[in-house]
Every structure is written in C-alpha cells, then in structure tokens.
C-alpha cells in the first residue's frame, strides 16, 4: 500500500481511507485532508529552523577558524534546544509607552512573511502547497509583509534607536526589492511562466544558472540584502545600533524574529535552488517524488551554504554604500540583462539548444562586462575622493599606501 | 475552487457594486471630514480601491474575454501610486518646512 517511492501520495490516500473508515462524512474528510498540508507545511518549515541554526553556527565558526558550539551534547547538537529553552523562559517585556497591539503583531507578521513563501515552493513534481500561476509575484508580495513587520517593530518600541534601525532596514529592503524582482524576470522569461513548478520543469534542458549566470549572481546579492545577512546586516548590526529594530524585544517575540531570519535565508536558498539550480530535477526524481524532495533539499542547502560563506567572509557594508550599490549598479545591470535576455531568447527561438544556451551566455557576459566597467569607474571615483580628502585633511593616517585598498572599508573606518 | 454545480448560487454582480459603493462613500467621508492631510490621502486610497473593485467586478461578470477591464485596473494602480507618491512628498516637505499638515490651516499658497 505504501510505496517507498511515492511516499506522500500513498500516505495521503491511506489517511483518507482510515478517516473514512472511522465513519466521518466524505466532505469533512476532504476538507480536513485539504487543510492538513496547510498546517503541516509551516510546521515543517519552522522545525527545519532547528537543525539549520546549529548547522549555520558550526559552518560560520569553521569559516572563522573556531569550533562553534560544542558543549551541549555531542558536537553541540542540542545547543539550539538550550537556546530555545532560554528564549521561552525569558520575561516577555512590553516597553512602557509602546503600542501594545502593534508591538505584539510585528513578530507574527515577520514569521508570516517567511512561512507564506513555503506555500509555493516546489518540493517535488507533485509535492507543493499550491501551484499559483503568479508564483513569483506571490513570493515578492509575501516578502513585503516582512518589511512591514520591521517598520512596525521599530515604531512600536517607543525607542528612537529602534526607529532609526527600522528606517534603515526598510530603506535597505525596499531598495533591494527592485533588482530582485528584475532578476526574477529572467527565469520567468526563460520558462515562459511565473509559476514556480513550471520554472523548475523548464530547466530540464539546462539549469538556468548555466543559461543566465549573471541573473543568478544578482539574485544572490539581492537575496542576501533582502534577508539582512552580512555583508548587508545593518538590519541588526549587533555592534552598531545595539541590535537595530528589535532592541526592545525579548523572550518569545524575539525568538520569532530570530527564527524568521534564519528561515528566511534558508527559504531564499530554496528559491535560488528552484529558480536557478533546477529545483527537484535530478535522476529518478519524476518516478520517485521522495528523491525530488531530497534533491531540492540538497540544492537549497548548497545555496544556503554560499550565503553562510559570504556571511563569514565579508565585513559589513555601510548603509549608503549598500543603497548606492543597488540603485547605481544592480538595478541598471538587471534592467539591461532582462532587456538583452528577452532579445536573445526571442532571436534564438527555433535554434538547437546548444546555440540557444551559448547566445544567452554571451548576452550575460556582455552585460557583465559593462557592469564591471561601471563598477571600476565607481570605485576609481571613490578612491580619488578618498585620496583628495586625505590630502586635504592632512591627518596622520598611517595606511597611506594601503589606502588604495577597498575604498569602502577604509572610508567605513574613517567616516 | 470546487467546481460549481448548476444550482449553486453565485454572488450576484450587484453585491460587488454595493460593496464598492459603500467603500467609495467611506473614502469620501474620510476625504471630506478629516483634517490631517495624510488622513485625507488614506480616504483617497479607499476610493481608488473601491473603483478598482468595481472595474474588476464588471470585467469578470460582463466581459471576461476582453482584457480592457484588467488593463484599466493596471493603469489605475499606476496612477494611484504616482499620486500617492507626489502627495506624500508634498506633505513631507510641508512638514519639513515647519508648516502645519492640517488641511484647514495649510491654505496659503505662498510661504
């Protein structure tokens, strides 16, 4: 009855038979079984956060040449549970003068903004919440709830530093929404549909990361900024604005924000895997959906690992540099990429797949070349500005020769 | 959604129209009766949304094959966004100059 390959469908039909045999009305059973994925999917998503947090802490630690949590249980596996216990038992404060309803609503919106994306993730050929034909836009729409949550959290804390942190966070999030939406147009263009499952299926002749690598790169950068991970983690810059917009949050409410952030970056890893790495595609994944889920998981973890890798490697970017990067570099690049890809895609409509792939790759490299030119002139201008300010102020800065180094880091230290 | 059987009652068009009329009147009340400029803008947004509901209801019920209804709504989205942006920019620059954002008091063009 339960075939190992088609595990989920056979489990579903077994459950239906079981409930019907208990004497429940068929309509009720249908509704109940329809609601079951709606309850299970967020639960699974939230439970995934537990091993993820442990994994990330170990990875980041190794990248930073330390060991990470290793006291609570073998290899520190139970560290996350210890953190959970701490968060549960902390006092749940509401600061005086804060807007109570909004203060309590903000963490809920933050989690909703992440878990809502799980409804459209294609885990396997037929394993998904719902196959919206506007799936990509739905992902963006749900993401805006997270932005709203941050703004409300900062405002309702009755704390001007929280508010400042919230302003900067929202500025960052809205700014990076633009290149994200534009780069997501590229897989939509190549697949001819906005539904995530269709995008995954369209990659069986070639993963989109090979056909449009520049789009994948811009998506990765924009995704990290959307989630608020380093190098864009001004959202919660622990060493700057005293943890940003969630200063006043403690206990379970803070736990919500914490889990939302981890889950958000894994969810973007899953999205990156679906859009660019072929989702659940792989040998045998059509016949055995469980294999599809496995492939999807592995690919999401791979993208997630790249996120963790950049987190452990790069220093933090300043807010104005970050916003400049988006508006002046990423958005024009993404626009040019979409335009050129549209032309290239249309021009190679009937040609053999190899020609099609090579033309698209060429379009990508073309846009990348121009983007690098722009980047070079921008950094040269920044370096000259820095050098003239150094010469003008005549301060006793030691690293004169080394100031040719990343202008961003040097100016971040001085400004 | 479940496939509708022949005798299952649908929502008549008039319900949508009455809803949008009610939302429009609420927005109109907000525009006419509130003093704060941003609150007036909230009323305007309600009115625009009521119009959108009206348009989509008519599109769906009377001419779902002609895309003009949805195109109209898309254009209304764009216009409402443009108007909200410019209106809020005006209000913010007013406030930055120290002028009142009370619509009854901000009535002199100079200054």
């Amino acid at each position: 009855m339960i075939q190992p390959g088609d595990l989920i469908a056979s489990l579903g039909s077994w459950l239906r038979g079981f409930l019907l045999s208990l004497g429940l009305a068929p309509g009720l059973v249908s509704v109940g079984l329809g609601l079951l994925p709606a309850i299970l999917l967020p639960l699974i998503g939230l439970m995934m956060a537990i091993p993820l947090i442990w994994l990330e802490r170990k990875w980041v630690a190794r990248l930073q040449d330390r060991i990470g949590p290793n006291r609570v249980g073998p290899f520190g596996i139970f560290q996350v549970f210890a953190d959970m216990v701490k968060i549960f038992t902390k006092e749940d404060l509401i600061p005086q003068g804060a807007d109570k309803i909004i203060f309590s609503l903000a963490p809920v919106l933050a989690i909703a903004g992440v878990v809502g994306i799980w409804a459209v993730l294609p885990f396997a050929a037929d394993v998904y919440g719902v196959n919206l034909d506007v799936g990509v836009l739905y992902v963006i729409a749900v993401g805006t709830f997270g932005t709203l949550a941050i703004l409300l959290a900062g405002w309702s804390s009755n704390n001007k530093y929280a508010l400042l942190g919230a302003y900067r966070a929202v500025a960052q999030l809205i700014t990076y929404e633009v290149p994200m939406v534009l780069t997501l147009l590229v897989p939509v263009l190549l697949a001819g549909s906005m539904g995530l499952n269709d995008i995954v299926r369209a990659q069986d002749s070639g993963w989109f990361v090979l056909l449009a690598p520049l789009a994948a790169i811009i998506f990765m950068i924009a995704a990290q900024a959307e989630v608020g991970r380093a190098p864009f983690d001004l959202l919660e810059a622990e060493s700057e604005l005293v943890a940003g917009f969630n200063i006043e949050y403690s206990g379970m409410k803070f736990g919500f924000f914490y889990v939302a952030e981890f889950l958000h970056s894994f969810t973007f890893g899953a999205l990156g895997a679906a859009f660019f790495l072929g989702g659940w595609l792989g040998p045998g994944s059509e016949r055995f959906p469980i294999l599809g889920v496995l492939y999807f998981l592995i690919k999401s973890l791979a993208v997630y690992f790249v996120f963790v890798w950049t987190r452990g490697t790069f220093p933090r970017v300043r807010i104005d540099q970050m916003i400049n990067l988006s508006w002046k570099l990423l958005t024009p690049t993404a626009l040019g990429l979409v335009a050129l890809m549209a032309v290239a895609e249309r021009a190679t409509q009937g040609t053999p797949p190899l020609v099609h792939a090579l033309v698209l790759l060429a379009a990508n490299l073309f846009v990348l070349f121009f983007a690098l030119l722009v980047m070079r002139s921008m950094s040269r201008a920044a370096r000259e500005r820095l050098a003239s300010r150094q010469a003008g102020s005549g301060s006793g800065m030691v690293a004169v020769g080394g100031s040719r180094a990343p202008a961003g880091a040097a100016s971040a230290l001085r400004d | 959604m479940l496939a509708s059987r022949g005798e299952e009652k649908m929502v008549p068009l008039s319900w949508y129209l009455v809803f949008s009329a009610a939302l429009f009147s609420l927005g109109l009340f907000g525009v006419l009766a509130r003093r704060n400029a941003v609150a007036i803008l909230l009323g305007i947004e309600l009115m625009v949304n009521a119009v959108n509901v009206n348009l989509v209801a008519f599109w769906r019920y009377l001419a779902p094959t002609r895309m003009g209804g949805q195109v109209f709504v898309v254009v209304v989205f764009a216009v409402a966004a443009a108007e909200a942006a410019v209106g809020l920019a005006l209000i913010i620059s007013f406030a930055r100059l120290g002028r009142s954002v009370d619509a009854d008091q901000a009535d002199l063009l100079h200054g």
Partner: protein
Amino acid sequence: MSLAQVLFLIVAAVGLLSGLMVVTVRNLLHAALWLIVALFSVAVLFAMLNAGFLAVVQVVVYIGAIAILIIFAIMLTRREALRAGAQENRLWPVAGVLCALVFLGLAWSASRLPGAQSGPAQLPGSDALVALGTALVSPDQYVVPFEVASVLLLAALIGSVVIAGDRLRSR
C-alpha cells in the same frame, strides 16, 4: 447561502469595517494599519473574481509600497500633526450625510443596472495572464495607455524626489 456567497460576505464585512476604522480612528498610524487590512480584503476580492494577477499586484503595490510610504509619511510628520486639534473638521456631520446620500444613490443605480442580478459569465479557456500581457503591449490593444502610465510614473518619481529631497549638499 452558498459557500461563495458566505465567503464574499465575510470578506466584504472585513473590508467595510476596516474602511470605517480608517476614517474614524484618532491615531493616524492605526488608521494606516486598518487601511492595510482594507487593501488586503480588496486583494482577496480580486482573487475571488478570478483576477489572481491583480490580487498579487495589489498586495505588492499597495501594501508593499504605498502603505509603507504612508506609514513613513505619518512617522515623519508626527511633530506637526501633534499640534493640530481634533481629527475631524467642523463640518463632519454634513460630510456624513452627503456620503450616505452618495452611497444610497450609487447602490440604487447599481441594483437597477441590467444584468446586475446575474451570475458571472464564462471565463475564457485560455490563459488570462498571457492575454493580459499581450493586451498591455500589443499595438492594436493597449500599449499606448501602458506607455503613458510608465511616463507618468517616471514623472512622479522625479517630481517626488525633487519635492521631498534635501537641498543638494555640497559633497
């Protein structure tokens, strides 16, 4: 009362209730949040009317951009707003009566429309999303309003940056 009707009544009730709260609450930020609820209920109505694309665009554009912009404006004009007096101006009863009359007139004429009591027409079998996209860019359909709308957005973008931006610092 079929399921569709019950659902519509629930969503419409939420929408109208939040609309009422938008125009009556004192705290402006709460009014903005009630507006978000109203906008979301309108998005649900769009989805019920088989206009899924418009529903999602409604959330992205209105809730994700305009509502956040409104909240920013409320936060940035707080000091000036605190100096003002009551929330309603002197003539609000007149406005109330006027709006009630407007509503009655609209509702009456709406229910008298031919075809107002009928159910929805048949949806076309083809993909509505593709049809919308084609309609927006095809030269014999609606490409001109589409382009004009984008020019309008560009003008609004430049205009609002000029109006609300700081005076150019001498950097």
